[in-house]
């Protein structure tokens, strides 16, 4: 059974600092997703990662995938307050593309 774990669960950062969120998954998965969720809101797709060594960047966020280690990272560069949200990784759970989500990382960027 596919399980997905994230750490840390909570991350308080100062503006301008860099940090990385880690996502481990337990069995082979074809795809790895990152979503952002603002309080009381829905899930916004950030990245889809398909292959080993895949790296995608959007603004201050960069996601990477290591399928051999079953590890994805979301790197935040020079954080700004607007990035405050909960970030979820999710792995593709099989033929129907059901998503198995991690526990989420609550990111709070302090001025």
């Amino acid at each position: 059974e596919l399980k997905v774990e994230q750490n840390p669960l909570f991350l308080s950062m100062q503006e301008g600092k860099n940090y990385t969120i880690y996502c481990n998954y337990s069995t082979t998965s074809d795809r790895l997703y990152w979503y952002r969720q603002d309080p009381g809101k829905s899930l916004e797709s950030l990245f889809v990662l398909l292959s080993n060594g895949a790296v995608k960047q959007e603004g201050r966020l960069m996601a990477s995938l290591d399928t051999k280690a079953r590890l994805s990272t979301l790197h935040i560069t020079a954080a700004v307050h607007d990035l405050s949200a909960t970030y979820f990784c999710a792995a593709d759970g099989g033929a129907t593309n059901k998503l198995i989500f991690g526990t989420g990382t609550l990111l709070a960027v302090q001025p």
Partner: protein
Amino acid sequence: EPEVTQTPSHQVTQMGQEVILRCVPISNHLYFYWYRQILGQKVEFLVSFYNNEISEKSEIFDDQFSVERPDGSNFTLKIRSTKLEDSAMYFCASSETVGAMDTQYFGPGTRLTVL
């Protein structure tokens, strides 16, 4: 930009009552999903639906739950006899295919409160 819509945004019901949560997926999408998120917890898969039938369901999706696509646009989740533990945010999602680059797009959610 096309989006997934859900109604109502908030539903309050008494334990034991039936509720129907409604979703309108993106129009050219073929795969539909329901997920739930209990307050403060992670998002959990409930069911996937394709070609007018359930393609996969989780342990959570027991006999009290059912899904339906009653017409060409709506996708519904019915809970026959609600329990306190059904209180959660329910998200509908859709994707065009299950191909390599396809992303699931999530609706805004329905917050279900069972009293």
